[in-house]
């Protein structure tokens, strides 16, 4: 936790973070669960609620700030990371959160997302991925599977999708995690780790759009299917999943790629141990890419990467302090005068 943040004088509850605005997502939308989880987690931050700001773009998820009783801005499509960057770099006493969706962050706002990640500004970015455009009523998104039939792709989408986690890792993100709207415990734990991370944190949240893409993540939610589909990552632990941990991830010594294998007794030592703090992002990228974009089998969730590197706003503040140390506090009169002047005297 950064020391600049003002702490709340009294303990807060989830209720303190509920705004007086009526929530207007479709009944059954996955956004409700995420909102409840975030409101439930916020008191843990212990940050004064006036020092918390939610910034969003455009899309269903981007209505989020209206429902948080903090400061908030519902901005324009794709630009939330840029706006939040200006706020976070100029106000280091604030805890700044960005709420975005797969269209907002990865399509129209893709540029801002990757640059926020490489800069490592102190932002927590919640990317609600429902693999569809909801607010515009059902076109395919940059995370939709190839061949998806939507209103704008009656014969199937031709676009290859992004894997948001692997995109973020490729963009030099210092913290990348994935979680699921309906798994409140897991979602909350990921929020906790993201909040503690200095710099930009990207959390991809699989979120169900029950109107235009219902059941997109059922493979990860249905208890039986999930055993085979979901790989729960925990730092420092061997990567195992499936019934009784019967499956695991190893590195293929021939190619260096990661692959899923059946774990046989005696083989456990060969399993890959998850290291979220690894200096290189390559293994995390390998993990992210284990998932089949169509069936979602072998989808890793949890914190894929959490490394320390210089934080943009901290460094900017440091440069300002250094400039004052070196040159003294700015003297406007001296600045305007410069060092090459002449005087016109009175004629008297």
């Amino acid at each position, binding site marked *: 936790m950064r020391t600049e943040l003002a702490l709340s004088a009294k303990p807060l509850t989830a209720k303190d973070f509920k705004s007086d605005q009526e929530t207007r997502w479709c009944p059954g939308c996955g956004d409700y669960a995420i909102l409840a989880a975030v409101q439930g987690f916020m008191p843990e931050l212990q940050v004064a609620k006036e020092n918390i700001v939610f910034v969003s773009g455009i899309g269903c998820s981007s209505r989020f700030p209206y429902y948080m009783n903090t400061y908030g801005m519902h901005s324009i499509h794709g630009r939330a990371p840029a706006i939040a960057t200006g706020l976070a770099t100029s106000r280091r006493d604030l805890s700044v959160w960005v709420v975005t969706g797969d269209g907002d962050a990865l399509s129209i706002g893709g540029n801002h997302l990757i640059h926020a990640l490489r800069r490592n500004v102190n932002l927590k970015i919640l990317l609600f991925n429902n693999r569809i455009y909801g607010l515009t009523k059902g076109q395919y998104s940059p995370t939709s599977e190839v061949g998806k039939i939507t209103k704008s792709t009656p014969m199937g989408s031709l676009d290859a999708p992004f894997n948001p986690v692997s995109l973020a890792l490729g963009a030099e993100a210092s913290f990348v995690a994935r979680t699921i709207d309906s798994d409140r415990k897991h979602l909350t734990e990921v929020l906790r780790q993201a909040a503690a991370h200095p710099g930009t944190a990207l959390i991809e949240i699989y979120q169900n759009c029950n109107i235009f893409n219902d059941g997109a993540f059922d493979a990860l939610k249905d208890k039986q299917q999930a055993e085979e589909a979901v790989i729960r990552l925990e730092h420092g632990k061997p990567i195992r999943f499936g019934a009784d941990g019967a499956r695991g991830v190893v590195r293929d010594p021939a190619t260096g790629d990661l692959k899923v294998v059946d774990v046989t007794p005696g083989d456990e030592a060969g399993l890959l141990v998850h290291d979220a703090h690894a200096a290189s992002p390559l293994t995390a990228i390998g993990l992210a890419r284990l998932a089949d974009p169509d069936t979602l089998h072998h989808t890793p969730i949890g914190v894929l990467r959490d490394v320390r590197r210089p934080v943009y706003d901290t460094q900017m503040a440091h440069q300002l302090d250094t400039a004052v140390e070196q040159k003294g506090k700015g003297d406007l009169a001296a600045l305007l005068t410069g060092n090459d002047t*002449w005087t016109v005297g009175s004629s008297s």
Partner: protein
Amino acid sequence: MAVQISERVLTQSPDKEVRRLNRVVIRFAGDSGDGMQLTGDRFTSETASFGNDLSTLPNFPAEIRAPAGTLPGVSSFQLHFADHDILTPGDAPDVLVAMNPAALKANIKDVPRGGEVIVDTDEFTKRAMQKVGYDTSPLEDGSLDAYRIHGVPLTTLTVEALKEFDLSRKEAERSKNMFALGLLSWMYHRPTEGTEQFLKQKFAKKPQIAAANIAAFRAGWNFGETTEDFAVSYEVAPAATAFPVGTYRNISGNLALAYGLIAASQQADLPLFLGSYPITPASDILHELSKHKNFGVRTFQAEDEIAGIGAALGAAFGGSLAVTTTSGPGVALKSETIALAVSMELPLVVVDIQRGGPSTGLPTKTEQADLLQAMYGRNGEAPVPIVAPRTPTDCFAAALEAARIALTYRTPVFLLSDGYLANGSEPWRIPALTELPDLTVQFATGPNHTLDDGTDVFWPYKRDPQTLARPWALPGTPGLEHRIGGIEKEDGTGNISYDPANHEFMVRTRRAKVDGVDVPDIEVDDPHGATSLVLGWGSTYGPITAAVRRLRTAGVPIAQAHLRHLNPFPGNLGEVLRSYDKVVIPEMNLGQLATLIRAKYLVDARSYNQVNGMPFKAEQLAAALQEMLRED
């Protein structure tokens, strides 16, 4: 071998004839790599410190190093200096310094017959001349007989002067611009200490190069002093009576604008935040502001134009004096965020250093063709106040004025400068800090509304009844948590509202707020009770004023007025326009102000337009105005 720089002072010999002049226009022209801009800058500094009034016009290609010796690669710097107050960089050069055949060819047509032309004869090789289409040498074929030609082997003389230095021929040749500067400094009795000091500082880490440049500079000066080719030198007395009492410096428009922003931040007691993306001719403001972190200035070079303004808007929400700087193409990309700032009613200064358009257009040339983009270039009814500086030095005050409006009315404000003001320079009377406006801001600190049930609440869209500005409540202020956005807001509460009547009210209120911006009346300069008025805006002030002077001197009465505020217009503008039989509006576009004036005031304003990437020439403009005044 290290060569020491002696401390002797160059002094003019009493043997040569000295003539007094009231004003001179000099143009340095050469290849993009010849250092003409630096040469011009140095001559300008010498001239400024001597106390002449001056005005400059740098003119260079968009390419960093266009092919050497070609016409598109020619870079020039024109300087007008005088013993009285002047308004423009001059229509035509009295003296042209041409460093190669391309520079001669590209510029000779601007030199009036009888003008002096100094050429580097070393560069007039057959190949170099053929490159620009000279079949025979213009120095020998009589085609320049109308001019006073000084053929000087500048390159050879420079290399000769530097032979004691341990430099390659190529390295030595690089100092030929300093030789030329030395020669011109002798010709016009310029003080030389400043340039020598400048060279010492610039090459502090390479004392050998500093010494070589100073040696070349002195060699040029001495060449003028000794050679018989230059029999006459000229004096232009300081313009002491033209200037009000004060301390002066030379300053360019972009530098003045950057200082204006810093001053505004100090006067408002708010940290300055610049979100910007590099673009010609605005980048110098980003460069300048990034040097002044000790003033609490944060500069953010964004990934694109949209992020530049986005970050600025985010900083505005957090309580910074937020600025974005760009040129026309960048404004196009920023439009959506400007409209968001209109809707969220946050202060934001949008600086547009206009250049030739459309699209990439002419990046290094000037134009005033973004006025309608600034006025209307957004979706929906999205009024934005517009402020335009009139001279390079005025960029300082205009920046303060843009910040005043933004902060007072909680609105984005356009500051429309252009390439001519940005790069041009002139003497500036340095203001005392006590002359600067107080821009102190009152943030919201507590509830501002009482509900029917007696509860005190904070309403982010409850307005100040005078200014119609909404409260600025900063994150970190307890109890004022609120959400704003681009969706229409309910009057008062700021909650999302799709109510038709509320939308109409909010649209009209945002318009009324901008219409109500406190703007001073326009002043008319009309000493002779003329029946015709010439109205301008922005950087045409110098050429228009010079043209008006010419007309009045010739006995043609004409009134002049110049707009600083383009939105809203001054309250008395309609009355002023209607009190003249004829109104002429010269613009460096195809009539954008004229369109606004005709639409708003139903006045038959006539346009005079030029869109060639260059400022108006006073003589030409005077002739055109006279012609238009004669027409019915």
